[in-house]
């Protein structure tokens, strides 16, 4: 019951989070290049409220705040890397959609390679074996 109440509270909080007043002031870019840079950057960054959305797409109030923070930093002449490390220092690597290659993410980066190699090996092994199998030649046409 307590667990349920907690769950309900979490659920309600996620609904209410969307109800905070949001500054709808649009950002004004100096030039199209700047806007493109902003779009690329916010697409690579995660909205921490709606965790499967990026900052560019999210309508959560925090995403608005972070977008205007990023915009201000761009206006102040900060590089993309400086802006990213500003966010990582506060929210952790989780804010990046493309996680860095480091100790705790190695499995994430290497798993696809190993899965591909493993799958490839199984396929090659299977084909070789099928070729050797006697009696298969007569009905090879079935495959």
């Amino acid at each position, binding site marked *: 019951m307590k667990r349920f109440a907690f769950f309900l509270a979490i659920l309600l909080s996620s609904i209410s989070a969307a109800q905070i007043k949001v500054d709808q002031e649009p950002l004004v870019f100096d030039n199209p290049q700047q806007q493109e840079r902003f779009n690329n950057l916010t697409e690579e960054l995660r909205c921490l409220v709606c965790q499967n959305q990026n900052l560019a797409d999210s309508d959560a109030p925090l995403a608005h705040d972070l977008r205007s923070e990023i915009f201000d930093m761009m206006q102040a002449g900060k590089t993309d890397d400086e802006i990213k490390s500003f966010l*990582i220092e506060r929210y952790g690597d989780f804010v990046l959609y493309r996680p860095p290659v480091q100790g705790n993410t190695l499995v994430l980066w290497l798993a696809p390679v190993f899965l591909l190699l493993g799958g490839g090996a199984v396929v090659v092994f299977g084909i070789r074996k099928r070729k050797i199998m006697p009696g298969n030649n007569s009905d090879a046409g079935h495959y």
Partner: protein
Amino acid sequence: MISRLLPLMAFLLLGILLAVGLTVSDTKTHIPSPLIGRPVPEFNLPQLFEPEKTLSQEDFLGEPYLVNFWGSWCPTCVYEHPVITDLARSGRLRIVGLNYRDEPEDAKNWLSRHGNPYHDIVVDYSGRISINFGVYAAPESFLISPDGEVVYKHIGALTSEIISQTILPMVDEMKREQS
């Protein structure tokens, strides 16, 4: 023989992955804070009841304290409220309320309805300071050491278990080191 078992092994492996994924997803919202072990972010914010007076992180040096991010718009804060009140009444830890992205009038009404457990309340109207804390929802709580270091962070409602099993032992330890 081995090739017969291969699909079964692959299936078992997938099963294990699924089990791990399901148990880990429970902690998905617990994003580790890079702030642990680092100085508390600087702030200088107006107080809710005396907006002309501000409080900064330096005003709290010398004793451990808890910064609790809350807002009148946040139902989980209502759920958390009795726990915060109990902790404040125990007198074992100073609790600083940080009113996050809220209208001061709404915040005051909320406090008069539910009671004000906080020793101090500061207001982050724009949410800028909360970004420096890496806050992304309310409630969130940060335990700060007497020398101004972030020692613990909790996302979501605090429970009496977390307070008695994690926060208060840390507070006692800090107080022991101090004396």
